[in-house]
């Protein structure tokens, strides 16, 4: 425990294994907690259902931006070779759409790649410099630790009662995130 003084940000409970974490997430969800998260070194199969998370909207974001990117580059090709700088090249029409396919496709892929990457970061509110879980000295969810964090902002949160609840569902240790 790094810091014994300061504001309470939440509780961090460690579990033994991916299976135990999955069961715990189901029970915490059933108990009505909303602002909790499970931390693990790798994504655990079935955790989204256990935490009752909605499907990620990244697919829609990437799809929409891919359409915009493709349409944008197609429009650029049409405008630059038919309106702004019309030149007859190998007898093709100004708007020779077959020849415009590769660049249009590249534009769509490029925009989808940026949308998927930066959309994911934005939804995850990353990059960020600090988070309450980093107040803990034992937080090793990037190595082999499996944790549940419950935020103090949750309406059902009560430092002692929630800690007792976490112990009752089989966590190995509970830590108060303070700082």
């Amino acid at each position, binding site marked *: 425990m790094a810091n014994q003084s300061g504001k309470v940000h939440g509780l961090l409970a460690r579990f033994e294994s*991916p299976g135990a974490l999955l069961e715990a997430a189901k029970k915490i969800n059933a108990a009505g907690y909303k602002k909790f998260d499970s931390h693990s070194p790798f994504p655990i199969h079935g955790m989204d259902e256990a935490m009752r998370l909605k499907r990620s909207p990244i697919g829609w974001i990437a799809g929409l931006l891919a359409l915009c990117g493709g349409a944008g580059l197609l429009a650029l090709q049409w405008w630059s070779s038919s309106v702004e700088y019309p030149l007859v090249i190998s007898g093709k029409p100004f708007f020779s759409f077959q020849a415009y396919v590769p660049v249009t496709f590249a534009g769509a892929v490029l925009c989808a790649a940026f949308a998927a*990457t930066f959309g994911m970061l934005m939804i995850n509110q990353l990059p960020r410099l600090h988070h309450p879980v980093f107040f803990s000295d034992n937080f090793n969810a990037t190595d082999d630790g499996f944790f549940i964090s419950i935020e103090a902002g949750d309406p059902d949160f009560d430092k002692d009662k929630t800690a007792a609840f976490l112990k009752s569902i089989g966590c190995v240790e509970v830590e108060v995130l303070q700082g």
Partner: protein
Amino acid sequence: MGSKTEIFQPPGEEAPLIAGNPDFHAVTDKISRISERKVGRLWYIGISISGSLAVLLFVSIAYLVWEGIGVWGVNNPVGWGWAIINFVFWVGIGHAGTLISAILFLLRQRWRTSINRFAEAMTLMAVTCALIFPGIHVGRIWIAYFMFPLPNQMEIWPNFRSPLLWDVFAVGTYFTASLLFWYVGLIPDLATLRDRAKQKFKKIILGALSLGWRGGNRQWKHYELAYLILAGISTPLVLSVHSVVSTDFAVSILPGWHTTIFPPYFVAGAIFSGFAMVMTLSIFVRKAFNLEDYITISHLEKINKVMLLTGMMVGYGYSVEFFIAWYSGNIYEVFTFVNRAVGPYAWGYWTMICCNVLVPQLFWFKKLRTSIPVMLVASILINVGMWFERFVIVVSSLANDFLPSSWAYYKPTFWDISTFVGSFGLFFTLMLLFVRFVPVIAISEVKGVLPQADPHHHGDAGEGGSNG
């Protein structure tokens, strides 16, 4: 049940993906330590050699820019020489990395987790080397921006009907998408290194690069979908980028280039050469960092099988080209192919056939495709052969085209060779920096394919169908 599962393996299941059944912490420790510990003398020797060669590349480029394209062996009629050969060679090598990271991911080939990180790194470094060549071969590189659709004072625009411009977009997109894919894959592993870092300086750098990742499932959810999408959009790139590169040739009217087989034939060749490079690199990486448990013989055998398959596709391409040349009844086309086999560049053609068609046939034999010395030699020979394939395609068609009066024999100069050798220097310098500072194996993905990562793994506290 514990002993039973060890004897009984479900059909189609092979040896465990990671040998020795390490626990999660052992995986973290083993892979992170590679980039945390002090490097040995071999690394310094390696980087001083490759770094010197990279300097040679930049000297060659500087001389080229100063003096002009005349320093190369290109002239009439061979106006495209080693620069374009090297470009196609390097782009092709990159394709295996994308195939491993994207297509094998979509196909749920879980063995890819051991090799995808450095295969993706190989893609990035190879495409970096590739991008140099079209950049410098324009001669006046200060007007290279003409390739991009930028408003300019002359009010001209690029010709979007030209395959050369498609190339700019295809390869540029390929590089960018590969970089993003690689970086997204790296975020959880950089967070692992961040949490292990002791020095303040390292903590700050890794803290910034890992973007504050904390492994929460609310993050993993979006992360996994983003990764899936990146894999999904990289998949067509494996096929499209080299197809577009092949149209540089196929859209022209030159005999030997003007063929419809070029796109699939180029793609197969790209994957073939890329897997050979992955093989060469993985043999060294697993040996140098004692990663035999992670990159097992079974992994290497699978790579060899891919090389056998794509090698035969390439061989099929060589024979169909000959058949179509004869079947077309076009005398120029027939001449070009006969000339490749018996003409002035026959030595290049037969090097190509030996390395690309004959060498991979060794992999029919299990004993040979599981032997490290055999695969090391074979993978290097295949890359030699694939370079010669591009040499034969580019040079033989240009040197002996329609009019015998315009024929000439093309020879490279010192600066052609130094630029090519230098590009290897740059490639290996970047790869050595990568293995030094970045986890060479995707730590979080390897943990995910361990048997105990499954929440229903036997002996687990959470096991049981009652709650499921």
